């Protein structure tokens, strides 16, 4: 209960603060944020777009982790966790793609222009799509779990290639406030605090849905097992 209240408060703070706090040239008061060069008010998307991308990466890694765990232990719970993490990752990946596309429309002029970041998130969507296609095409539960775990591991291993290859093929126009060559954070404490609360709250939402889905799927599993007895 306390968890949900905290999440509600956190998300309310982000929405209100992220959208309404003024952006000025030189911040003087605690509630003012600096102007990001070349972005202006469009920079506010950082509080909503970056956390979704962050959650989709977390979900992808945890899906990989539970997949490996399933292969080692052969416990069905791990497969349930792996596929649930993947489905939530897919959802957040779509959200990140859509918010990014809307932002790109106003910053770059088009919804989609095959920027390296857009290409890599597109590939992530393709991998998720292939993963679910594979899962739906196998009937045997045990085989489905094993093969999808193997596939997610192989797919996960190719992801680093995109991180190194894509920037070399085309230069990206994507702003990098968090990870940039100078390793600097172009945010003042206010902006950073809101951003970190946002990351935390979105991760919290992910964990909440994740735990709920695991509970439901576990109940279904137990019910099925009882029916068999």
């Amino acid at each position, binding site marked *: 209960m306390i968890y949900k209240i905290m999440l509600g408060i956190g998300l309310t703070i982000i929405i209100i603060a992220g959208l309404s706090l003024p952006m000025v040239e030189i911040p003087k008061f605690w509630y003012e944020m600096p102007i990001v060069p070349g972005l202006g008010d469009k920079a506010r998307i950082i509080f909503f777009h970056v956390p979704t991308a962050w959650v989709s990466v977390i979900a992808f890694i945890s899906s990989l982790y539970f997949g490996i765990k399933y*292969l080692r232990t052969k416990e069905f719970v791990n497969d349930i966790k792996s596929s649930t993490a993947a489905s939530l990752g897919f959802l957040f990946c779509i959200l990140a793609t859509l918010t990014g596309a809307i932002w790109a429309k106003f910053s770059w002029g088009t919804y989609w222009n095959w920027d390296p970041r857009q290409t890599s998130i597109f*590939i992530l969507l*393709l*991998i998720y*799509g*292939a993963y679910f*296609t*594979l899962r739906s*095409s*196998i*009937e045997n539960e045990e*085989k489905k779990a*094993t*093969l999808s*775990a*193997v*596939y997610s*591991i*192989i*797919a996960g*291993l*190719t992801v680093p*290639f*995109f991180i*190194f*290859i894509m920037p*070399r*093929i085309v230069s990206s126009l994507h702003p990098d406030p968090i990870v940039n060559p100078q390793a600097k954070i172009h945010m003042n404490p206010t902006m950073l605090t809101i951003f970190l609360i946002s990351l935390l709250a979105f991760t919290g939402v992910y964990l909440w849905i994740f735990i709920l889905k695991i509970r439901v799927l576990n109940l279904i599993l137990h019910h099925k097992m009882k029916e068999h007895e």
Partner: protein
Amino acid sequence: MIKYLIPIIALFQKDFKSEIRTRYALNALVMFVITTISIILFAIAYETPPYEILAGILWIIIFFSAMSGMARTFISEEEKNTVMTLHIITTPITVYFGKLLFNLVLLVVINCFSTVLYILLMPNFSIKSPDIFIITLILGTIGLASTSTIIAAIIAKSNTKGTLYPVLSFPILLPLLLEVIKTTKLALEGEYFQKAIPDFQVMIAYFIVITTSSYLLFDYIWKD
């Protein structure tokens, strides 16, 4: 080393002989390549396409001919009910590397065929740096064979076999395809060899990563 090599060669010979007898994959692939190239020739008519498009089309032909040819590597074993026999007489590692070797040979043959045909028929497709082009072709073929073998093993256990194959392979092959298209373009433009070396390193790394992970994971796919 020899101890591991002999059963791998034996498995390769078995596949090779059955392929020579039926020529199922080879005939289908040759026809596939000829049809595709003629469709492209009709479509471009008398135009001279730019290098980017020529490089892209070549690898699209190679990708889809691999997708239609390699799919049967493990499905044929399932259909003929010879999976059990292989389980009894050999280890999973032998099966994986035997199939990889067979796929590699098949791909080398078909890629040589399609590249020669492509060079002869395509207007404007003249290679100015043969060294880059040949190494691209070799590394691309090796990478394609390693990925298509492990995905073929995965889809052999599913219900919708043929259609699933390109769907699963494409996201995994994409880094390789982007690289080979880039270096093919470099070869057409007549760049110096040094300029393509980083791309070749990525391709070699790709092959090593995929083959090692397949080697480690093949056990789980193969055992029921």
